[in-house]
């Protein structure tokens, strides 16, 4: 078998060196009742060609974003990733290395993580960021937990504009530890509604900008209200490119930023692996979950980088850890770093403007369709529309015409009573022709 280097002769020689008669001798501690006599009931070994054919057949049954007019967003965005990114992350030294616990032979990983931490801190407008979490949704959950530790209060107030999956993932975890959540009703443009719900037991308010309906909000007043009450402001961002155009969460007073970095460097990948961005204030760093890379010197006085403040983490703190997290997003984090290095500030701002331009053009095209109501006023690259028909059905019909027209809000939250709301995203990959095609076919479908 191509991945197993031992030959029968090797095995014989090795068993002899060990003093065992057969491999079964080495499994002697397995209770007899649990020993399998032979391979389990699954297909046998297959060559590369066979595996490629089988998996390609599965892949061929999926409609790919790049092959059709594509307008899906809602937390995962299609952007163009330069060829360099994917090439570098497949280098042996990045692909096949481990967590940098031996820093002398892992400076490659440690240095790019330090660069990543700086990029994320600057992008979010915050003083410090960690070396990434799994994704934006678990980053939000970790943010809420951190806020309860810092404030010693027990309640999180969550706006009606936060992505429902993020809300659910957060509730699943924080409820388990007795933290209360108050989730406001879904609302296109009401991040500030959280202000009225702030009380003495509020550890944090959680808002999203741009929110799930695309609305971009200046959350400065929300930050002020939260701080006046001794609570923290957590800002969730699901489209990292938006911070290339919009005022940063840090500038607006965020205490914790929990964001999704997938847009930079990473493909859609049907939902994962993604990369969670987590940034906070200087005085809160010891409460921050996840890995941290820090600068130091070696025995010869040379500058180097190491994992640091490890005592927050599970392998040392065990049952008193800030979180049970062990991995970060590794290669996805590297992909973000490389793509961001290629973009630079100049490129990121341009990219962001292009996204906004395409979304505005899409909005204008849809606004002209009878029966379509544009719900989102100020947006980055995504907006919500109200259709005169059930949005999920319309999306399915358009899929039949080879158009992926967006995400019906009911897919995220069927109980919200917003079955006629469609979330539409456009990026720099959206062609003018795609917009025209979408508008034409949608108009036909709605008129039918």
């Amino acid at each position: 078998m191509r991945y197993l280097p031992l030959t029968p002769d090797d095995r014989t020689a090795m068993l002899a060196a060990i003093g065992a008669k057969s491999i079964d001798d080495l499994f002697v501690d397995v209770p007899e009742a649990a020993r399998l006599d032979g391979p389990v009931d699954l297909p046998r070994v297959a060559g590369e060609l066979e595996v490629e054919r089988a998996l390609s057949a599965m892949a061929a049954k999926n409609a790919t974003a790049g092959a059709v007019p594509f307008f899906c967003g809602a937390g995962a965005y299609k952007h163009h990733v330069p060829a360099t990114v994917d090439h570098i992350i497949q280098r042996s030294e990045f692909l096949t290395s481990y967590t940098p616990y031996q820093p002398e032979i892992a400076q490659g990983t440690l240095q790019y993580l330090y660069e990543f931490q700086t990029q994320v801190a600057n992008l979010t407008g915050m003083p410090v960021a960690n070396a990434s979490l799994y994704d934006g949704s678990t980053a939000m959950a970790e943010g809420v937990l951190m806020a309860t530790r810092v404030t010693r209060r027990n309640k999180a107030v969550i706006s009606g504009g936060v992505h429902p999956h993020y809300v659910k993932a957060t509730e699943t975890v924080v409820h388990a530890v007795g933290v209360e959540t108050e989730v406001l009703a879904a609302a296109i443009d009401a991040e500030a509604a959280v202000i009225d719900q702030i009380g003495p037991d509020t550890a944090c308010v959680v808002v999203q900008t741009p929110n799930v309906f695309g609305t971009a909000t200046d959350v400065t007043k929300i930050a002020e209200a939260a701080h006046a009450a001794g609570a923290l402001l957590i800002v969730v961002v699901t489209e990292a490119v938006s911070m290339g155009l919009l005022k940063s969460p840090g500038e607006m007073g965020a205490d914790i930023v929990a964001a999704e970095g997938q847009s930079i460097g990473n493909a859609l990948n049907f939902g994962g692996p993604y990369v969670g961005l987590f940034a906070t204030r200087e005085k809160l760093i010891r409460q921050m979950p996840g890995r941290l890379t820090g600068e130091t010197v070696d025995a010869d006085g040379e500058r180097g980088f190491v994992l640091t403040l490890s005592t927050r983490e599970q392998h040392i703190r065990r049952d008193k850890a800030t979180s049970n997290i062990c991995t970060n997003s590794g290669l996805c984090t590297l992909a973000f770093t490389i793509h961001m290095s290629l973009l630079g500030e100049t490129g990121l701002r341009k990219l962001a403007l292009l996204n906004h331009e395409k979304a505005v053009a899409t909005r204008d095209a849809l606004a002209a369709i009878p029966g379509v109501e544009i719900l989102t006023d100020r947006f980055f690259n995504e907006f919500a529309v109200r259709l005169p028909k059930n949005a999920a059905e319309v999306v399915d019909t358009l899929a039949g015409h080879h158009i992926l027209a967006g995400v019906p809000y009911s897919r995220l939250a069927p109980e919200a009573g917003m079955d006629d709301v469609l979330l539409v995203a456009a990026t720099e990959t959206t062609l003018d022709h795609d917009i025209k095609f979408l508008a034409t076919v949608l108009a036909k479908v709605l008129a039918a």
Partner: protein
Amino acid sequence: MSTMNTVGRPTAPNQVQTKPATLTGGRGLLQNEPLIFEGEGWGKTGVDLPEPRTDASDLGDLVRKDPIGLPGLSEPEAMRHYVRLSQKNHAIDLAIYPLGSCTMKHNPRLNEKMARLPGFSDIHPLQPISTVQGALELMDTLSHWLKTLTGMPAVALSPKAGAHGELCGLMAIRAAHEASGQHEKRRKVLVPTSAHGTNPATAAFVGYTVVEVAQTEDGRVDVADLASKLGDDVAAIMVTNPNTCGLFERDILEISRLTHEAGAYFYCDGANFNAIVGRVRPGDLGVDAMHINLHKTFSTPHGGGGPGAGPVVLSEALAPFAPAPWVVHDDNGYRLIEREEDEAEQAFGRLCAFQGQMGMYVRALSYMMSHGADGLRQVAEDAVLNANYIKARLGDLMSAAFPDGPCMHEALFDDEWLKGTDITTLDFAKAMIDEGFHPMTMYFPLVVHGAMLIEPTETESKAELDRFIEAMRLLAQAARAGDVDRFKGAPFHAPLRRLDETRAARSPVLRWTAPEGSNQAA
């Protein structure tokens, strides 16, 4: 003679023997590389984009005015920067990477090719279900392989890492106890002293009190101690099998029987599944929930620390509580249940947005299909054989923590053999670096003093094992002979010497900051 090249140059080495220091600090192929923030690239970009036709004035004050602080690089510069960094990393592709408990096996490149098929990588998680039937088919097929290999009836795919899987398993257990009205009284989780830190961290996170279970002299769970601590106030036990000492828990059937009799569930940490895959099914051992690290047993890349994936196989009793989303296959094809409804009515919630680590599912399935059931069984056998070979060939010079009987896929040594040499496990590990090897896992498990945990995996050839063993033997002999400086000052030949971790923790510097008065952002 015809015209010939008369420009002479020597073709054999000359006799200069002394080695002067270089003038720039460079060392041959190894380049020094500053941070991207320390270059000149504050206005550059390596991406060609069309000119935007908007200035976003429609967004008024929401537009970001101040510089962000992100340098840019042209493509050649970016390539150089990251290639130079890459040269400072050790990797599986370079040599045996014997980290115990991590399963650093070869990462097949077919997996990378398959994961990058646009049909898997260029699909959005919220597209209409009819347009992603192939993706759901892949998830369902992976589920089938995982269930069959483990002998378990159900699997939750969404956890994003092993630790996330532990969270999933414990939350399913808690949900099951809540459903039967027993959660209020069952607030304890029993964890062996040898457990990985994520185990007690996760149990505490979910609201349980962690009670430690002792270990016997031969490195296994003390069943008598376990039995004495089991009761109707215990929700679950968390046991790693093979355990963190690299040993198979002989009494595992008794352990699971006692646990179930006490009305508790058996959570198994599946980090060491590589030792038994295809030869033993956790379902046959009485396991109720077990996370599987796809980045360990099933070869998805470690990538310098991630991304991982930790699906959790579940027993009949726990299956109803698996978190959303569920992939269901019926006569109409595949569908997703994304909230607590229909068959997934009792799901304990959702662990993350969307469907989980699809990119890792593709890689893992590619790996499984390549090996097949027979290949996977061979994987476990060769992994165990390789570890025992190392144990046998080093046992005369180094002290095995549990010398009697075979180990499984990893060999555990303690620092008893270094007594009196003034050389610690840490020193020994750093000297391994000079010899060209990534050190083994050190100081874990905590139950063994100065632990050295060596896991070769099945993808090491006998030649590489022999090369490693030879180096270890020479080092061990040097340590015993009192060659202290070699160890205390190591590493001498790595890109950097030992780093000051105290300084990094006392005065954390977690980001680059522009010098005062510079015109660069942040």
